[in-house]
């Protein structure tokens, strides 16, 4: 029987989502017995040619070269799974989409002419068909393992698309918005993290991006009641999933 091959690719990102694979300390060696890690430059000097059974893709598309490279990755991959907020919505670097990238470049680099960059940071799905998307900034380790196991078993992963609130209630946590008046994006953010922030008495800041059909309009008056000004509301929706359409609408409307 052929051992399935796994490849890990990086585009514009922080490395944190692919690091999640190396953070599976208890499962890493067992996983390496089930799949052949064929291409993973952060972890191995061995770089085997494609095609690959499963490709994990981290990062967003921000350069002309990467626009081309993602096509190659897609051609070489039987299953393509994006990992994390950058790859699924464009990441924090998608804030450039609402600004002027030339001005950004000249603010950061003395000689912006050496810098090759696109005006936007876009998710992988804007360029090639994607088989599955893992949310989060960063992704959740258990969700990553579930997803890899699902594809190895030849089934689709079964992950929730409900809100963080459902996980928060299931953990029996006290609602930070109701009890403390702390603004929280839990009601509109996709589950998956395990409601980490509320368990530390902090409001969710939406790092898993919008849930399916989020009712952001119903949340806005509650955020205002919690004391958030319009510009603050605009900023909290404009972070790691700033370009996810359901969040971008709010941050643009509240006048960031």
């Amino acid at each position, binding site marked *: 029987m052929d051992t399935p091959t796994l490849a890990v690719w990086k585009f514009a990102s922080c490395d944190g989502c692919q690091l999640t694979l190396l953070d599976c300390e208890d499962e890493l060696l067992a996983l390496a017995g089930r799949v052949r890690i064929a291409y993973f430059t952060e972890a191995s000097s061995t770089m085997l040619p494609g095609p690959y059974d499963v490709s994990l893709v981290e990062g967003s598309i921000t350069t002309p070269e990467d626009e081309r490279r993602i096509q190659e990755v897609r051609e070489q991959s039987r299953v393509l799974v994006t990992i994390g907020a950058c790859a699924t919505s464009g990441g924090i670097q998608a804030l450039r989409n609402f600004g002027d990238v030339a001005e950004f470049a000249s603010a950061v680099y003395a000689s912006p002419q050496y810098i090759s960059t696109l005006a936007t940071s876009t998710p992988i799905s804007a360029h090639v068909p994607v088989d599955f998307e893992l949310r989060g900034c960063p992704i959740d380790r258990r969700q990553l393992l579930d997803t890899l196991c699902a594809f190895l078993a030849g089934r689709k992963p079964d992950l929730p698309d409900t809100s963080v609130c459902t996980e928060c209630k299931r953990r029996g946590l006290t609602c930070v918005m109701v009890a403390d008046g702390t603004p929280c994006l839990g009601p509109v953010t996709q589950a998956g993290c395990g409601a980490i922030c509320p368990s530390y008495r902090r409001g969710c800041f939406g790092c898993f991006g919008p849930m399916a059909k989020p009712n952001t309009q119903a949340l806005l008056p509650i955020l205002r009641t919690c004391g958030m000004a319009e510009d603050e509301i605009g*900023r909290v929706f404009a972070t790691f999933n700033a370009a996810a359409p359901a969040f971008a609408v709010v941050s643009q409307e509240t006048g960031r």
Partner: protein
Amino acid sequence: MSGRRLVVNAIARVEGEGRLHLVVRDGRVERAELNIYEPPRFFEALLRGRAYTEPPDITSRICGICPVAYQTSACNALEAACGVELSGPLADLRRLLYCGEWISSHALHIHLLHAPDFLGFPDVISLAKEHREIVERGLALKKTGNALMELLGGRAIHPVNMRVGGFYSVPARADLAPMAERLRGALDQAREVVRWVSGFDFPDFELPHAFLAASEPGRYPIDRGTVRTSTGLAFPAAEFPEHVVETQVPHSTALHARLDGRHYLTGPLARYSLNSALLGPAAREAVADAGLGPQCRNPFRSIVVRAVEVVYAVEEALRLIERYERPDRPCVEVTPRAGTGHGVSEAPRGLLYHRYTLDDAGLVTAAAIVPPTSQNQAAIEDDLCRMASARLDLDDAGLAALCERVIRNHDPCISCATHFLDLTVTRR
């Protein structure tokens, strides 16, 4: 004699994307370029207009390997801008969280990225086929570091609990007791790792660079401090821009930093060489076992220094837990005001400097971040020239492999380095 050109297109076992370009002419290395092609993400530009509470979370996304370093340097700079300095248990908790990142990041580099070079394996998976217990011990140590970050920060990558002024919530003393138990086991593992790596074969190589590291009275620098160099300079974080200047080079999306016009090195070798007398008793014992002197200038031996620093981070974590008393409040009040603040801390791979200018509403008008790998890039290129010049007898594959090792000695974080500096920008 004809020229020789060597290109390594994707440097493996480093964080981020880099390419190496070596030009050899007439039997000597004319140029070594570490070409960072990691796409720029413009953090300093997109921080403008954000509230003073936001840079710790936003800048942690520069690097998934050392997010606590970003959060800490950002908090240090923003608290300085607002005239606040943490003390007592809140300051201890921040250092404790940072110990978790040192343990995890160093254990990762030692076992997964660096050790395979010394033992002739392409990666940790192959290494584990022959030395499974050693790899399992390394992964267990890494997991302890992650567990400490999860306990205090909520998660190991991009923790959520740190904020300007302290934390969102703080543990009770009893919450830390199981962690102390676990760290006591980790201390034995960390000592064994020092013994293991100090038995490797190290090429003879002494680097001449000036060293730069944070410095704190009476203890090994981790979470804050002033800046010291081996050239005799000592200055507060606020004077960093006067001494360190970054310039852009065409071959890289990372800027190159110079200390008073010279290249220099930050990171474990610098930190250790400037502060080895301040290590704790267990780490000092490990140093003696490993036969390290008070300074270490061989970059290949950085793996031993990292292992010693893991011992220190574990014993320091135990000391901080021992004296911990839960503070009355999880954070101190921080009232924003117009002004500029500077902050440094020692990321696992070297000193990380942040600067923020705030307006009187507490919004960021300018930001500058100098990560360790930008500071080290010129020194790494210098190492490459020296090492490659001495071994031009190697064929291209051998020379490329050696050059990759020279780069990995410094645990460069290329994702970090692609973020730039030198901006004095006013808000639109």
